[in-house]
């Protein structure tokens, strides 16, 4: 939405789709997928071999830059950059939504009249999709996490899996969306809701699996070994040791997958034909495809930001309790 004159790959795909240019669209998606996968695999293979100049020690310089004043200055700059580039712009949308309280937009939103009836439908749809996609990821992601973390099936197979699992976040999401839409839409006649669920699971899969792999890898294999010699079947060991010991990672992974799914726009644009999720609706509002006042846009986005924050907060607190 920030982009104007400069069109990157995903924006081009979106515009191409709106203009009805299906074949160039497929071609660009194809190029994007191949190129990003190629770069990623290349980095995976060659990055560990690259020698970064971090082994050199410069005692004088490092002593000076470790002084208290230098440290404070560094912290200040870090905080300033964080505030200016991350937090303030992210929450800036709150300001127009403050205006929405006085000009009647809030009342319209609560009553669900006019454009707001579609808005609430979209929000409900987004959360339903996110919930289904996260559930699907937990069921499908757990075995793969164990496979990767414990090198089941040998170093080669696990290594290949380890790399392939990253593809969904490496590839631009709209290109992935085009690909997923072609696969599920072209091969089967499943309802669009499930089409979106599948697309979102593909995209959020990596977040869940990565989180689980890191956690399972941190459990000493000795713990599982001992349990086996004490008579524990592999499933018993998984249920009573591996799962409880990685429950935080499971929740963290689920939260990431969930929030990522709620704000997923690119792939949804490429897959959806009739259904409109909340972020896609916001694109329409901002672009003016659907006429909406600036305070309505502010409030709509504000609610999305707020609900995301609240769900994140609730899950974080719930995790602490466990």
């Amino acid at each position, binding site marked *: 939405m920030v982009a104007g004159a400069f069109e990157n790959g995903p924006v081009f795909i979106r515009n191409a789709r709106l203009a009805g240019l299906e074949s160039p669209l497929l071609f660009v998606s194809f190029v994007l997928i191949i190129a990003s996968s190629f770069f990623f695999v290349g980095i995976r293979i060659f990055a560990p071999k690259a020698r970064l100049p971090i082994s050199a020690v410069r005692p004088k310089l490092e002593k000076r830059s470790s002084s208290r004043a230098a440290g404070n200055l560094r912290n200040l700059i870090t905080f300033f950059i964080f505030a200016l580039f991350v937090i303030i712009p992210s929450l800036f949308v709150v300001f127009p939504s403050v205006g929405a309280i006085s000009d009647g937009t809030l009342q319209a939103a609560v009553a669900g009249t006019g454009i707001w009836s579609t808005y609430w439908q979209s929000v409900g749809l987004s959360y339903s999709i996110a919930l289904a996609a996260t559930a699907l990821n937990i069921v499908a992601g757990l075995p793969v996490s164990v496979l990767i973390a414990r090198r089941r099936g040998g170093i080669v197979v696990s290594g290949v899996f380890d790399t392939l699992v990253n593809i969904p976040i490496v590839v631009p999401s709209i290109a992935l969306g085009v690909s997923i839409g072609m696969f599920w839409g072209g091969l089967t006649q499943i309802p669009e809701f499930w089409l979106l669920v599948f697309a979102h699971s593909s995209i959020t899969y990596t977040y869940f699996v990565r989180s689980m792999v890191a956690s399972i890898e941190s459990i000493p294999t000795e713990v599982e070994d001992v349990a086996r010699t004490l008579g524990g079947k592999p499933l018993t060991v998984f249920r009573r040791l591996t799962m409880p*010991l990685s429950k935080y990672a499971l929740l963290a992974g689920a939260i990431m997958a969930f929030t990522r799914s709620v704000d997923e726009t690119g792939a949804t644009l490429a897959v959806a034909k009739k259904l409109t999720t909340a972020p896609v609706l916001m694109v329409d509002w901002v672009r003016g495809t659907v006429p909406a006042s600036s305070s309505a846009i502010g409030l709509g986005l504000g609610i999305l930001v707020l609900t995301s924050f609240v769900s994140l907060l609730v899950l974080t607190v719930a995790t602490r309790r466990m």
Partner: protein
Amino acid sequence: MPSIRLIDVSKTFGRIKAIHNVSLQIADGEYVCVLGPTGSGKTTLLRLIAGLTYPTSGSIELDGKPVTFVQPEDRNAAYVPQQYALFPHMTVRENVAFGPLARGFTPEESLRTADEMLKLVRLSHRAASFPHELSGGMQQRIALARGLAGRSPLLLLDEPLGAIDARLRVILRYQLRRLAKDLGVTVVHVTHDQQEAMSIADRIAVLREGAIEQFGHPADIYGAPTSPFLANFVGGANFLEGTVVRKELDVTLIEVAEGFSVTSSGNAHPLGGAVVASFRQERTSILTSASLEENLVPGKLVSTSLLGVFLRCVVDLGRIGEIVAKVPLREALQQRLPDRVGDVIFVRAGREAVLVFSRPERALAVELEAF
């Protein structure tokens, strides 16, 4: 009966031979220590018996039944790893009850067994604690209780006392043996501490570079080691390289330096053979005046240090090199040895104390290395 039999077992990891043609038979109820330097394959041997890794060749029998590729949970051999690997999210009681529960006991039975085991290791009062709240010694006892709770007749201990401070280690090792004997379990106890092995094992298997160097009663390994490595690794000794220069009915004379010979009993080595003469430091005595006994060499006392009931004396024997004598403290004080550093004294080792080995293929210093 929970006996263990390894038949020609080998295990390779890539190009590394961790275990090399090991054959071993351990009887029911026996307490066996596997002794070896770091990297000798001790843990791999234990994991092979536990079923946590499978041999590249050879076979394993437990209780007279072949189990070479049987899953660990179907072997009834409880493994207690070096760092204990207690389950951090479970209380001590839940940790100990894991085995019985996994083996299909009811929760009540399992907890009752857990409580019995905790009583046995005298930690009933910590049943509700979490492992990280306990000291290293307590954690070790919990790991032991957990291993015993499933009623496995076979206990596989990997350096069970390795992480415990020296004093407690000595106390705990006797308790460990007593507990095992009381419960009648067969134990394979891996350690790199030769004193620990000597003091509690029924038999010791000395492992070196993945192969069994000697398997026997502690007294045999100490008294009749089969290689210079064993003599050095178990008990420690002085070593002198030499050549057999004379053989009589029951005596062999070995020249260890120009003009110096050592007399040993026995005559197993051929005339002119390259050998290593070895004698225990604690069977090397120091005399303050010359006498006409055999194997008596003058030397200069270089240093002394106190080792409990012994005084450790380093003596420079000139062309022969330096040797170490551990002299009983009372005797050493009567001889006023600490005051005689720098003086000329006489060193003696009786012929019956001298063990003779064929010269190893590699250099003696390399042969004696034990990392």
